[in-house]
């Protein structure tokens, strides 16, 4: 009797947790849409609600006890991607490795579930806290656990260089990849400066071609490949061209099929991080001018100078701390 009561209580608690988590996620997504698509709050909420059913289903899948059934459920999702067409396009590369750089979405999850049916194919998926949760079933399901692995960006670059007998599908999610300035390029995305990792161009220009992503129009998603006249190029202009192409296509998906996108909050957080670093750099430049002013003007009081520098540096530290806290939460 006690056990029954305990199970009942735990079940209610779990349902409540899930309910509040979904509700919180809905509000986060609506807020991200307001910020990124510049929509009024009510319209953003309506748009966020459109994807609730699908998101709730996807959110629950990692906790399902039967992994195979969870992966099958992903294949059965109602998504805006033309799956047969996408599979046909990828089938022409059945014997070789390629790169899927996709917006983190229901369509991406479902496509990977479909592709995982090919037992000769291995999968290297980028390791982030999101993919760790959402791809959990692929890591434990008997039919996929030996063929799917999550790996960090540096390991992905190394692994790609090492020779392998198997065809590998490398999967990255540019909208989830947090990165430092030295491994990132500034690219316009949804009207703002956004940091894109150089991982995808590095993989592509080191021979991991073709590179596919999603493009969207009229509410439908299709798979498109990057076409570059040159391979093995490593100039910054080549990297920027590829990332701009990627950003434009991903932007279409965010605008055209917002309900399918799962990464709204994470992408907003990364955009916030970019804004924070830009603000810190501006403050550093103001500090540079104040220092030059002090060197030029003999009447600039030492105490005023010292106080000004302390104040400017304190603000820089505060913004950077908040940025770090936001990106590591």
């Amino acid at each position, binding site marked *: 009797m006690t056990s029954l009561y305990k199970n009942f209580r735990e079940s209610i608690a779990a349902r409540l947790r899930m309910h509040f988590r979904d509700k919180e996620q809905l509000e986060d997504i609506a807020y991200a849409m307001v910020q990124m698509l510049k929509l009024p709050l009510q319209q953003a909420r309506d748009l966020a609600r459109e994807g609730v059913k699908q998101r709730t289903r996807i959110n629950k899948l990692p906790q399902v006890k039967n992994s195979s059934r969870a992966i099958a459920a992903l294949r059965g999702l109602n998504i805006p991607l033309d799956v047969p067409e996408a599979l046909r396009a990828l089938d022409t590369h059945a014997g070789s490795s390629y790169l899927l750089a996709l917006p983190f979405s229901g369509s991406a999850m479902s496509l990977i579930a479909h592709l995982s049916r090919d037992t000769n194919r291995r999968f290297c998926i980028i390791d982030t806290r999101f993919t760790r949760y959402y791809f959990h079933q692929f890591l434990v399901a008997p039919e996929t656990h030996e063929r799917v692995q999550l790996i960090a960006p540096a390991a992905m670059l190394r692994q790609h260089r090492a020779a392998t007998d198997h065809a590998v599908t490398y999967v990255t999610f540019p909208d989830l990849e947090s990165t430092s300035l030295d491994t990132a390029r500034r690219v316009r995305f949804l009207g703002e400066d956004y940091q894109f990792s150089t991982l995808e161009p*590095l993989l592509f220009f080191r021979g991991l071609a073709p590179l596919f992503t999603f493009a969207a129009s009229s509410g439908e998603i299709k798979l498109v490949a990057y076409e570059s006249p040159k391979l093995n190029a490593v100039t910054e202009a080549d990297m920027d061209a590829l990332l701009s192409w990627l950003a434009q296509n991903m932007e279409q998906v965010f605008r055209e099929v917002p309900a399918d996108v799962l990464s709204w909050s994470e992408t907003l957080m990364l955009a916030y991080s970019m804004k924070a*670093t830009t603000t810190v*750099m501006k*403050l550093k430049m103001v500090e540079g001018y104040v220092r*030059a*002013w002090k060197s030029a003007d003999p009447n600039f009081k030492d105490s*005023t100078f010292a106080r*000004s520098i302390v104040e400017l540096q304190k603000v820089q530290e505060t913004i950077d701390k908040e940025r770090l806290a936001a990106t590591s939460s």
Partner: protein
Amino acid sequence: MKHRIQRLYRSRLTHGVMQATAPVGSRVLARVADAYEYLNTDETEELKRNFSLAFPHFSEREVRELILKYRRSSFESEYERKQLDMMPPAQLRDFCMKRVEIEGVEHFRAAVENPEPVVLFTPHYGSFSIGTMRAAMDIAPHKQFSIFYDSPEKNPTTYIYKGLVDRLDVGTKVLYNDRTAILAGARALKKGGVLGIMPDVYEYNLGLMYVPFFGGLTVAMGGTAFFALKAKARLLPAYCWRRRPGHFVVRYDKPIELSSTGNLAEDIYHTTVRVFANLETQFVAAPEHWIYWDRFANRMSYEFNVKLPRGNESWSEQFTNLRRAVATEQSTLGRFLSRFENNLHDEEALVASL
């Protein structure tokens, strides 16, 4: 088969062919560089803009000539890199010893023959890879030489250097610019070694700063100054460029004087200002060899169109222009800067009334 090709790639035969065809190759390369100039109009426009910003007194013709020189120099640098990559170890050592002249040898000797640690810096300038190889050979009998660069995972163009350092085989240590960099650099200097750094690159961190450069402010990392100050090391500038095809010069300048206010943050700033003043002197004397002219404007403060304070001028009015250029009045940053400016004015007024 793969090993055979690899052996052929770095064989004496390939090296001999490269050397024999070098004079012709060099001329062909110059023509290709000139042609590239006309083909790549976007990049040429960017260079024109950047050179005009750095050298506002240059005529259009002078800027055009500089672009051509720059293009030839960068093509030659790339060609040299490939040449170095193809050299077997013995030829590599021979090349670095016989083809490179040293200037300012007294500064070099004073640095390596002294027990104090040395921070040796050079920008991405001219034939810096050849200069680094030669420095490694000259330093080896006296001190341990450690050089910083990005891992190939971070920057794919650096993969070549690890191979070069290994083939040179004079005990040079490679340190990657990662989380362990500070500790590794400090360790190298603690033992009285030489640490090689390239100060003209940057990545975001709180230690970044803006220092005067070409009439504006440039973003700079404080790492070079930090290591020199922490280890009380000699801070030695070096530059390497080609004097004529196949012949190079490495010039060591007088050591940079370290700032010594006792406040580490201020000392890092002032020492970094001196490092960049040294770079600027060299870049003005022979600008074509600095490889980062193509992205010069990105690192500078020119976009805000606010002139640096000069002479005895009070700069209050210019600060208002700066504040308006940096942020809108309504933004959080704009509001902060308004308050910041008011405080500056209040204190200025208080000083005047006293």
